[in-house]
């Protein structure tokens, strides 16, 4: 079906007008969508230094980093062994304990359940720690082990390990 040259010209004009309009509209909408993303000052939220000298073996503290709770735990020998004994391939989110810690007695975790974002229990001595003696999320029943790995319940992933460095033996810098 050969079109007349006149029609071709009209088609071209129509197509280019619509295309230009669509691109223009998209360019107009983009700043509005982008304004909903985290602002620069939010992104710039800095790092936190924590003094860990007062933490006894088996004890755990919660600090706030970028608005989220971070767990810092000094693990006992038993807890370290329990975490190491597990075969990574048996896990839902396979990871060796060695890949989750820098010094094996110090476990640093973002204390946010990977299911729907509650803060798991297990920081206090009196808390429920779940079937794997780590953390237990009361919202929907996820159990984490002594390495913060998901073992049972609806959560899909292990508790996140935030970026951190040991400034010296008594201080951790998180972020």
């Amino acid at each position: 079906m050969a079109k007349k040259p006149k029609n071709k010209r009209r088609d071209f004009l129509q197509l280019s007008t619509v295309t230009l309009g669509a691109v223009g509209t998209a360019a107009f909408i983009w700043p509005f969508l982008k304004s909903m993303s985290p602002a620069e000052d939010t992104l710039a939220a800095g790092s936190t230094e924590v003094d860990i000298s007062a933490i006894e073996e088996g004890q755990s503290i919660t600090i706030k980093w970028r608005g989220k709770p971070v767990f810092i735990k000094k693990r006992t020998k038993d807890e370290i062994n329990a975490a190491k004994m597990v075969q990574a391939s048996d896990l839902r989110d396979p990871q060796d304990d060695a890949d989750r810690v820098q010094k094996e007695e110090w476990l640093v975790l973002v204390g946010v359940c990977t299911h729907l974002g509650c803060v798991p229990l297990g920081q206090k001595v009196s808390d429920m720690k779940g079937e794997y003696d780590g953390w237990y999320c009361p919202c929907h029943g996820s159990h984490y082990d002594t390495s913060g790995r998901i073992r049972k319940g609806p959560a899909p992933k292990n508790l996140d390990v935030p970026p951190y460095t040991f400034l010296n033996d008594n201080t951790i810098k998180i972020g």
Partner: protein
Amino acid sequence: MDKNRKVHQFKNPVLNWIEFRLPIISYFKKEYGDYPMPKNCNYFWSFGALATITLVTMIVSGIFLAMNYTPHTDMAFDSVERIMRDVNYGWLMRYIHSNGAAFFFIIVYIHIVRAMYFGSYKYPRELNWILGVFIFLLMMATSFLGYTLPWGQMSYWGATVITNLFSAIPFIGEGLKTWLLGDYNVGNATLNRFFALHYVLPFVIFGVVGLHVAAVHVHGSNNPDGIDIKTNNDSVNFFPYMLIKDTVAMCAFGVAISAVIFFGPNLMAEVDNYIPADPLVTPAHIVPNWYLAPFYAILRAVPDKLGGVLLMFGAIVILFVLPWLDRSKVRSCNYRPIYKWFMMGFFVNFFVLGYVGMLPAEGLYLLIARVGLLYYFGFFFFITPFVGWIEKPSKLPLSISDVYAKNIAPNIGGGEKGIPSPAMQKDTNL
């Protein structure tokens, strides 16, 4: 313009002046005056009007609350407490608004039950049903956003759990969640945008309600027998009959909601929401508003994060296609001897899901939630199409008037019960 346009003539010259320039008077006369309603409609048909009145009440009380509310994480909780203690009648505005939301859902659930049981979603009212489900979705979004604003523990953790649902989406989930929150967790940016959206969405709802009402007026209202109006004898004018009936319903509703507002304003509130939000401590049980609990039960019944989220949203989305899942031409369940019981079972099941949705997801409760989940989806995917195919419906009345003729047949001479009085007969000079 059309010079031959017929202009309605009214006795009042002011009305005539307006009508000539904007034919809005005749529109209202047609849609809310002479509009024919099936004369067998019972009080179930008053819930649309009740819902509209509640929506307006929510918008008005909300605007006045907004005049004293501060959407900032440091001040939101205190500003709500100030509304309760210091602002003149602030407590009344807030209790009207918080309990009004709960009653809005009660009314809309009854409205949906009515539409399902009497088959109002079927031809030719499918689009009307779709608009209705859309309103329901908007209502759920709006109520969730509003629940965040007092910035109590339930506000904060409810917002955290619900926005985390989006992180279940593969690949883009985390990014989408961060974009929705404006931060890596629920914070001030989140509270600000939630307030802005909570303010604007009710007006969107109001617009869709306008379409919803306009759509039902095209083919007229359904009725308990699910048959069409055939003659003038089958209907009554909206004014005054249905207006008076809706007014009676509104009085009863007013008594019920006043009883709660004045004597039990916190019956449906969660105690934990009177504790200011704390990002480091999760309450032992995060409980959704009861009117969203059935969907929360479905979410928790699935041991997989993405699966739970998909089924929860699926439970709402499935409603959109109900008109095409149901193959039966008979609208009213009164004439469907088998489906009727499955339908009632569906309502009971929904109620049970809501009940277990408020309880911890473990042991027997989890089992009940899973059985409820199976029935919920089984009802739509298997029972509804299958029963429509095998069921033999009872004989439908020939017309709406015929229903009354049958009712009086057994007790002829036994009084006037059931006989449509002359006043109920519609004027023929429509």
